[in-house]
């Protein structure tokens, strides 16, 4: 009897020891940081090193000597830079104004309808970026459909080759990017909150100001970020739809063809401004989250 019990006990203890050993081993397998090593190496080579190179080229001249001349050269393009920021700001604001009510309306539909509408909104997004701009070139060109209509009314204005056309092109490209994040936040706003506010006697505007607006801020921030960054740095829209005023993306590409150093300087300035903007937006969004 005794021997049997001891053998069962020892067997049980040996078994649990096995399990515990396995557990610690395998816990370390899933808890290890090793799987990330390939990507960390990749990140180093393909993200960090190129950016370091940009900084390097921005601060040196063609012979490798340290100089700030590139920034002096780059400052000649300040007007282009301001113009790009200006266009980006206008486009982002208009996108926001257009997208915000739309997202709200969509979020109040049934789930089935919402997914259909969102699907139809995404189809243009999946179409090629350049083809969509090209479509606008065709539409806005002289003797194109819009021009013909305006001529009938007697208005003789060039629809293409100016800032307006560029802004229209940007809005067309990036409107879905503004709608989607705002919608996803809006759809999480519970109907009962709105109803409660109305029960408490708030007018429609008040409901908007006190309930919907604060809750939708994360979506707004996300959308603004996703629209402002590409519009400020976009590369070909101005070449297709704009006139003689370039945008900073086009300038960078063109300068890079002959002068890597000045080009890097301009790119560095652009990157710093955009990243700074993002950090600021992030922080602003965080504050809201914390306040709630």
């Amino acid at each position: 009897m005794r021997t049997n019990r001891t053998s069962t006990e020892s067997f049980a203890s040996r078994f649990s020891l096995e399990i515990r050993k396995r557990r610690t081993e395998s816990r370390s397998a899933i808890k290890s940081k090793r799987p990330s090593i390939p990507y960390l190496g990749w990140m180093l080579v393909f993200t960090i090193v190129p950016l370091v190179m940009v900084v390097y080229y921005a601060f040196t001249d063609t012979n490798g000597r340290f100089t700030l001349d590139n920034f002096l050269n780059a400052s000649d393009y300040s007007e282009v830079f301001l113009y790009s920021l200006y266009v980006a700001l206008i486009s982002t604001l208009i996108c926001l104004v257009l997208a915000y009510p739309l997202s709200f309306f969509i979020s109040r539909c049934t789930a089935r309808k919402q997914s259909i509408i969102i699907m139809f909104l995404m189809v243009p997004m999946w179409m090629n970026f350049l083809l969509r701009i090209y479509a606008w070139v065709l539409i806005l060109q002289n003797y194109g459909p819009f021009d013909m209509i305006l001529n009938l009314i007697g208005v003789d204005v060039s629809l293409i080759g100016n800032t307006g056309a560029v802004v229209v092109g940007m809005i067309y490209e990036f409107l879905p990017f503004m709608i989607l994040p705002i919608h996803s936040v809006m759809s999480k706003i519970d109907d009962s909150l709105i109803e409660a506010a109305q029960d408490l006697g708030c007018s429609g505007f008040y409901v908007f100001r006190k309930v919907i607006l604060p809750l939708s801020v994360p979506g707004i921030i996300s959308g603004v970020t996703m629209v402002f960054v590409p519009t400020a740095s976009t590369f070909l829209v101005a070449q297709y739809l704009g006139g003689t005023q370039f945008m900073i993306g086009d300038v960078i590409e063109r300068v890079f063809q002959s002068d890597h150093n000045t080009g890097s300087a301009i790119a560095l300035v652009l990157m710093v401004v955009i990243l700074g903007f993002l950090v600021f937006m992030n922080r602003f969004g965080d504050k809201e989250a914390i306040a709630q």
Partner: protein
Amino acid sequence: MKKKSQKIYLAIIMAFLYAPIIYLIAYSFNDGKTSVWKGFTMKWYTALFQDAQIMGSLYNTLLVAILASVIATVLGTAAAIGIYNFKGGVRSAIQNVSNIPIINPEIVTGVSLMLLFTFAGTMLGFEMGFWTVLLAHIGFCTPYVILNVTPRIRQMDASLYEAALDLGCSPMQAFFKVVLHELLPGILSGFLISFTYSLDDFVITYFTRGSRFQTLPIQIYTMTHQRINPKANALSALMFLVILVILIISNVVSAKKDKEAVR
């Protein structure tokens, strides 16, 4: 209840989004190159299919997109798991660096990669082309995978993995059957996003392709940059059709799944 004004507003926005595409498609059937309608024809479609350059670009684009998204998914999933195990401060630092390709303006990423490849190319003697484009695409797809997988890791219950081990699985089995299964939605959506971004990428491809490698977006740039070419219209029409079909199918399938779930 939706008021009429809301419906009208939605319709206007939809019209705004779709009108240019409809216009492109309509003129792909035009028997002329200007905006004057000259008659119905399918000749631009036949020209499109006979154009070996365009077919070559399509092949390149799909090849790069599939390879890049598969590699990015594998790399990114492993990375997401590994990164999750770092301590707080280091972890968020790594996450921030990993997000740089996403938040950086595309032109800066493209230009920086071009500098890297030009420098390495002169050092090591290779030419920019398929491989540099592939590497660049993997570089900007992987962060998206990580971004999609990490929330699933956070939601995953670690004890599931240990329970599997207790039930007798080897670590490998436990990983594939339990962990991967839990992460699968994140992995798949990461894959899908990578594929989409790689398929449509223009700016980064433009800077890393050297002078010979053509992808479809680059080809479209050449087509729309020179003379008006209705082949571009035909191409848009076909792309639109394919996208519409894919999205409708996926929507129908997921609707069916929802119905079954309710039942």
